[in-house]
């Protein structure tokens, strides 16, 4: 099942990419044209299938040109920067043969490492030899996550707010829901603006930062347009035209170049640039600036009979009339705009007819301004510099009261006059105006995964299905795929991995699958980070991964022989077999040395009845030794019987426990204390037979040999033997003693 269903899956889109070129003349390269700043890719090493996911395609070959691409409208060239920047050293590299090797990251399909290799200069070496740059360059097909850390954190907080919104009281009411969505959308825009500001504050802006600023501006333009077109509906009363105008002026502001030219101009009235700028100001509804512009061409004259001066007075009057006309334009927020608007249009028309000047250049320009103001589509589109300017001006001046659904009908004349640039942003904007949101989002894919995923998520929360298309939109199906695509690089990021997992929590279908794949791959070198990783497993019911991670931690401690921590972690993971193995290590240590080495370890582990049986056994066995040391023989005998009866320890160790019974039985006989019952003695004899079972003979014999090194008469113990005779003899004696006492 594909996570990313396509309209037409046959079309494999190609994202060509290049490397930042070192200062070399590539035209002299034989067989290799314009490496590396071309749309061609040279494969020198491994190309993984992972890379061939959705929007990139690479062929295979060895150091040769492998694929050429046709520039489709959807294709965008992407420059990949080597990190750190590659510095060409002509003393080191031959200018005639040089290439770049690529290795892809094992888990991150869009990250790879590069290295440069090639021939050394002939002047330097006599024989032809290949050399390899010692520097490994990190590259990523995705943006630099580190520089976006603050933005991603801020955006995640808003994403969570959006996720919670449907659970709030306000959500039930339609108007409140729209307000909530608008607020959330506004918060996203604020986050984008803040990031642009922080990028602009960087003193030295390299190409990468400039690209980032440009991407974020595109994101802002698309997001804001969506907000205007889709999120604000019932709350707005004839506000679309002004909203669009504000959007255009904020996202695509007028440049300052024309102003610099005009500053040096001696006669503004006759300067084409002046009028061109003035048209733009009028088209964009920037009326205060337009009025200032018009005032700047009013000439101070005295009333005389001089014909030239009178002409100036007439021009000044016309300028004043145009300014008055601009000032009197009705504001579209008032309720009586219909009547006011018609009145104002007739005033405009009258003024237009009354303008007759000797200077035809001026006359044409004044008439054109009035035509724009009165919404003449030809005049508007003729003077617009782009389709966006033309469209927004048309809506503002011709259809100031139009609704979002009406915008589509105004697009026809705009696209007859203008062609839309094939870049993804322009294409996406065009489709937003057409209200083809699914298509628009498919272009956002080429702009930024953050934009795509977050915009889709928020749009899914609106009632777009009802308002546009009247059918189920594809974005609902795509939402989760887009979110996963965005979150995937975060999962392996050294800092933002928690945010990545939080995003996956909102992907109901596939989120858990991705979590399972990545959670075990997060490196941890201390317990605090380990606990944070475990929390992710706990929150998402990843029981198996949780156990694996705890086991890894336990094993890490096992390797450095920190047994208390190992036991704790293995207990948490339920690793009973491993705990049994640790238990056996401790018992072996006892057999070797006769000392309880694990006392401190057990001190650190509170044990209860629910604890693992091996650990419980160790705890009881240690208790037995403490009781013996403190001369609590009756209790010690009880604990020893418990240890034997539990049958938890390895069978050969039962022999050791049986050896422990000998001094207690002797003591019991000597002092006449009943430490064991008759049934216990019978059990001891049974256990003796079990220990002497042929099947465990080898391990039993080895154990006795090791124990004999310290367990003999001279060290205060008794002499032990492989056949357990001391135990058997003592059992017989104790039994007889019991019977004797009983008969007495």
């Amino acid at each position, binding site marked *: 099942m594909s996570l990313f269903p396509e309209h037409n899956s046959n079309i494999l889109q190609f994202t060509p990419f290049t490397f930042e070129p070192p200062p070399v003349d590539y035209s002299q390269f034989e067989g290799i044209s314009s490496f590396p700043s071309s749309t061609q890719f040279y494969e020198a090493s491994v190309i993984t299938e992972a890379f061939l996911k959705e929007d990139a395609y690479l062929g295979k070959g060895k150091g040769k040109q492998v694929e050429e691409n046709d520039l489709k409208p959807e294709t965008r060239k992407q420059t990949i920067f080597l990190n750190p920047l590659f510095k060409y050293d002509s003393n080191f590299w031959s200018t005639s043969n040089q290439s770049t090797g690529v290795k892809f990251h094992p888990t991150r399909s869009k990250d790879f490492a590069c290295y440069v290799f090639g021939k050394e200069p002939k002047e330097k070496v006599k024989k032809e030899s290949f050399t390899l740059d010692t520097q490994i360059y990190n590259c990523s097909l995705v943006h630099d996550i580190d520089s976006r850390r603050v933005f991603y954190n801020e955006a995640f907080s808003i994403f*969570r707010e959006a*996720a919670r919104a449907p*659970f709030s009281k306000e959500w039930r009411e339609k108007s409140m829901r729209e307000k909530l969505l608008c607020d959330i959308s506004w918060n996203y825009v604020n986050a984008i603006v803040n990031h642009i500001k922080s990028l602009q504050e960087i003193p030295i802006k390299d190409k990468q930062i400039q690209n980032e600023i440009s991407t974020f501006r595109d994101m802002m333009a698309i997001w804001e347009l969506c907000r205007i077109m889709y999120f604000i509906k019932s709350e707005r009363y004839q506000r679309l035209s002004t909203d669009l105008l504000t959007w255009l002026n904020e996202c695509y502001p007028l440049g300052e170049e024309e102003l610099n030219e005009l500053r040096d101009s001696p006669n503004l009235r006759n300067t084409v640039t002046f009028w061109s700028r003035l048209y733009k100001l009028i088209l964009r509804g920037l009326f205060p600036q337009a009025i200032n512009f018009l005032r700047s061409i009013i000439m101070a004259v005295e009333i005389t009979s001089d014909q030239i001066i009178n002409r100036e007075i007439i021009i000044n009057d016309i300028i004043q009339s145009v300014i008055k006309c601009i000032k009197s334009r009705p504001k579209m927020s008032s309720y009586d705009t219909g009547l006011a608007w018609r009145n104002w249009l007739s005033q405009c028309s009258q003024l237009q007819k009354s303008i007759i000047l000797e200077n035809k250049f001026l006359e044409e320009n004044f008439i054109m301004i009035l035509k724009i103001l009165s919404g003449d589509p030809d005049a508007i589109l003729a003077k617009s510099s782009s389709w966006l300017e033309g469209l927004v001006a048309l809506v503002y001046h011709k259809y100031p009261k139009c609704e979002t659904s009406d915008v589509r009908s105004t697009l026809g004349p705009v696209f007859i006059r203008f062609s839309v640039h094939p870049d993804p942003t322009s294409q996406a904007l065009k489709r937003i105006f057409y209200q083809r949101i699914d298509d628009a989002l498919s272009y956002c894919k080429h702009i930024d995964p953050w934009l795509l995923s977050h915009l889709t998520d928020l749009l899914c929360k609106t009632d777009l299905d009802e308002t546009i298309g009247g059918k189920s939109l594809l974005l609902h199906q795509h939402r989760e795929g887009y979110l996963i695509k965005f979150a995937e690089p975060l999962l392996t990021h050294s800092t933002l991995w928690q945010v990545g997992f939080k995003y996956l929590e909102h992907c109901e279908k596939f989120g858990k699958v991705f979590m399972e794949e990545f959670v075990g791959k997060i490196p941890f070198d201390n317990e605090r*980070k380990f606990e944070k990783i475990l*929390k992710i497993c706990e929150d998402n019911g990843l029981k198996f991964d949780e156990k694996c991670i705890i086991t890894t931690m336990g094993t890490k401690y096992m390797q*450095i022989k920190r047994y*208390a*921590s190992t036991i704790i972690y293995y207990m948490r993971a339920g690793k009973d077999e491993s705990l049994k193995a640790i238990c056996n290590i401790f018992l072996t240590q006892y057999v070797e040395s006769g000392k309880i080495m694990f006392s401190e370890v057990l001190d650190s582990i*509170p044990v209860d009845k629910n604890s693992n049986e091996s650990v419980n056994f160790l705890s009881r066995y240690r208790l037995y030794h403490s009781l013996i040391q403190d001369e609590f023989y009756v209790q010690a005998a009880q604990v020893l019987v418990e240890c034997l009866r539990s049958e938890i320890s390895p069978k050969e160790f039962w022999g050791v426990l049986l050896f422990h019974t000998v001094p207690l039985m002797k003591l019991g006989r000597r002092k006449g204390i009943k430490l064991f019952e008759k049934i216990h003695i019978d059990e001891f004899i049974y256990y003796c037979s079990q220990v002497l079972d042929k099947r465990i003979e080898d391990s039993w014999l080895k154990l006795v040999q090791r124990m004999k090194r310290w367990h003999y008469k001279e060290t205060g113990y008794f002499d032990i033997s492989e056949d357990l005779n001391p135990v058997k003899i003592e059992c017989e004696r104790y039994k007889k003693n019991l019977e004797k006492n009983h008969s007495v």
Partner: protein
Amino acid sequence: MDNLSSIYDLLGLSTKSTGGKISKVRFDNTKQEFESNEVLFATGSWDTPKENTLLLWNVEQVSFGLGEQPSLTFSVLGKTTHEGDVTDMRFIGDNILLTSSSNGSLNAFQIINTNTSDFMDQSVGTSNYQLQMIMNRRLHSFTDTKNASLNSFAIKPHSINDPLVATVGEDGRIVIVRIEDSVKDHVIEDADASSIKAILWPRSNEIILANGCGQLRIFDPRENKPTTICHDCCYSPINIRVPINCLAFHPSKVHKVASGNNKGGVTIWDTRKLTEPEKHAQPHNSRVWEVFYHPYYQELLFSCSEDGTIGAVNFADFTPTFSTQDSMNAVKGQNVTIRKIGFKSNELPINSIDYHPHSKLLISGGDNENLLYTLI
């Protein structure tokens, strides 16, 4: 996941970007300048390989009058890199900031007021302070090549002029050092067989440790063996072996200690009678990373947790309610008032909190890379 609990009382914690996940926040409580509106504090980051940072901050309060919330202006005064995650931090006298690291080292930074533009750090704005490392000692390791995280440190009471510092780490050792000397005063090799999470030094002859197995251990620093070992099995049987992550002093009663555990519980202990904990509450549903007592309202215990919230537990009305069932809900003190403080929709962990009583400012930092603060 999306249940909005009724006790979830969101207060307006504002945010400042710090450029890294914050692991510690600490006020400089060494200076008592009541006339000054400026308060210094430091933040330390974690999980930013090769570029963990220490930031020295200044917060200035401007009051607009009675009843009005003062306006707070935060600014970064100085910045330096920190090797390894910052695991603990404390200001000591003579403008020294002590930090501990996940690479097992104890560091001391001298705060130097340069007042010149030479030390301006462009990335953090105006900076008149330099944080100069004056000590870096690797004290905790498993082997010669494998470092153990230094989890916490405590300073011997009344030794501020020549501070004696006890450090604990994942290697289960207590190392007692003097800042001035390069020699380790005393090393208790096997203070704990598991990792030690937190340490307190309330009295000259008493060091309290919390370990990864849910135990509290009391040591006489002159001895190598603990005098008392106890664990929380009274209020919640499920708390057995649940790691204790943090400890805090009571502001006036030297025998009272608060702890926070891995399951979101906070416990009050009386060190004179450690057979069972004194009080227990469950303000969080996940790991508690830090606790502290309010300096004036001494029954009020603040905690911060992996669940992304700050809890304020009022133990004034605590009446113990014991249960025979092994249920988390059944064992907490029912009469305890718990108030939760959070930031917007933040779900990312809050790792550290601190309170400045004079300015009534509570600051906290966590994994959302923001400094969160509120006036309480």
